[in-house]
């Protein structure tokens, strides 16, 4: 695979002054995605699912084709198991407000991990508070694994387990398949936060046996404002709707309504067909490149970056020693320097990295730091960019007045 040819697909990467290493926050988009969205609005735009004329039917078809594409991508059994949402956050909230509010009761337990993004913590805190349930955290050991002992926190009282497949701070991949098995043994449902895994690895929701799987399009070359929730059909069927209004009903009378079939029951209001089409194009692009290439390239870059940073005595790295466990995510601190200052001075070199708590404050408290810097690479990043980044890192302490 020719990396320069890949980069040429991304208009924003043409400006070589910039090194974009904040891919875990949001990726860049190739022209194929931009063109698919543009083409939708230029040629097929009408309100999907409503009109009885050609354009509206075309918009509906484009939208449903995108759903089908997502279903195939995640290996869902059926198309209607894919609910389009705005992002992973909305997908997780959907599960919390519908399934969890209906099924979690006083004294029940919800188990999540300590490395969750706030999006996979706050919805469960809300359910636990409203329902009088207990929220428990699984803590990882010094090798970034969850011990069998720790996993015993999943008990007969557990109704729901939620875990991120890939951590947005440590980069590690969690054993969600094994955890799903443990959850199912005690009759709990398994919610997988796929925001960071979907961009980086082939996902098979049936193999994982996830009951729910949430992700965002914008972290995997798709547009902002579109994401999806996968849910097993039996569960989705039995759940009350999340939002109510147009397009999610069968009939409405003055007294009440009966709801539409899946997936429309969960897609109230005019849907985001243009971005769904963009997401489908992003999936096409990723599969054309192939996850073998993506994983290889990310691991190569992680190795190059981590090994160079390990030689710098004033740098603390967070996350596993094994360079193949990072999914392109390198989280670090520079002795004496606040990550905000690090990010600001790197910005003046046109190097884009993230600094702060990465929406994972309980994890940072567990690690014992207030904030960190994070460089996150994707398959279109290059060795030269890693080298530029490392060379600039070496100067940061000097710029901040240390000598």
């Amino acid at each position: 695979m020719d990396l320069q040819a890949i980069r040429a697909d991304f208009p924003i990467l043409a400006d070589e002054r910039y090194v974009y290493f904040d891919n875990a926050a949001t990726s860049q988009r190739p022209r194929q995605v931009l063109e698919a969205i543009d083409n939708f609005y230029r040629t097929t735009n009408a309100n999907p699912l409503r009109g009885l004329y050609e354009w509206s039917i075309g918009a509906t078809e484009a939208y449903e084709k995108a759903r089908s594409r997502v279903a195939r991508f995640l290996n869902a059994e059926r198309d209607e198991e894919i609910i389009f949402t705005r992002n992973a956050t909305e997908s997780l909230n959907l599960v919390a407000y519908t399934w969890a509010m209906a099924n979690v009761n006083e004294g029940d337990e919800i188990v999540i991990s300590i490395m969750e993004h706030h999006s996979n913590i706050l919805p469960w805190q809300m359910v636990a508070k409203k329902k009088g349930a207990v929220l428990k955290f699984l803590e990882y050991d010094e090798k970034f694994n969850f011990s069998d002992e720790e996993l015993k926190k999943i008990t007969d009282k557990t109704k729901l387990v939620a875990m991120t497949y890939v951590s947005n701070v440590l980069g590690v991949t969690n054993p969600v398949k094994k955890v799903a098995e443990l959850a199912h043994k005690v009759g709990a449902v398994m919610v997988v936060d796929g925001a960071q895994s979907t961009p980086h690895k082939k996902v098979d929701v049936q193999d994982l046996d996830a009951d729910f799987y949430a992700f965002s399009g914008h972290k995997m070359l798709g547009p902002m404002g579109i994401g999806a929730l996968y849910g097993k059909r039996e569960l989705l069927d039995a759940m009350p709707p999340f939002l109510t209004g147009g397009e999610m009903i069968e009939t409405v009378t003055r007294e009440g309504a009966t709801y539409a079939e899946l997936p429309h029951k969960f897609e109230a209001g005019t849907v985001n067909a243009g971005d769904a089409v963009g997401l489908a194009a992003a999936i096409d692009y990723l599969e054309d490149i192939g996850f073998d290439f993506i994983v290889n390239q990310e691991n190569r870059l992680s190795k190059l970056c981590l090994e160079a940073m390990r030689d710098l005595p004033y740098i603390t790295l967070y996350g596993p020693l094994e360079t193949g466990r990072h999914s392109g995510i390198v989280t670090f601190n520079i002795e004496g320097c606040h990550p905000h200052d690090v990010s600001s001075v790197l910005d003046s070199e046109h190097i884009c990295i993230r600094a702060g708590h990465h929406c994972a404050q309980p994890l940072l408290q567990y690690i014992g730091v207030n904030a960190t810097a994070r460089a996150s690479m994707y398959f279109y990043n290059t060795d030269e960019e890693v080298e530029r980044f490392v060379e600039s890192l070496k100067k940061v302490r000097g710029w901040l007045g240390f000598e």
Partner: protein
Amino acid sequence: MDLKQIYREIVNEHNLHPEHKRDLANPTYVLQGVNPTCGDDVNIQVELDENGVITDASFSGAGCAVSQASSDIMIDQIIGKNKEEALQFIETFMEMVHGTASEEEIESLDEAAALSDVAHMPARAKCATLAWHTMEKILKGEE
């Protein structure tokens, strides 16, 4: 001014060798300010005499160089002012940040005027103003 120059000429010195980073023995007021976007906090301590004059002040807490330097500079200039003068001084600083202060007013800010460029960086304005907002809350709450 280029960012690295701002650090070199203003921020680094106050960050690495802050004059007012310590705890007061008998503070009249203590207030913690938190920057919600990063979780950084600054703890401002003030000692007022019976005439409302700030006889001593200090700061502590974890933060970036910009917020630490900004705290140090503010406190340095606010000691010795009475409440009204201090509030006026803070208001002028905020006006500079919002781009509505006149050149004369900016000059009256003395060393704090040097923070103008950082305060205008969208990503760092909150770091630069955290201590000022916190001090303002203390002085207003006292009225």
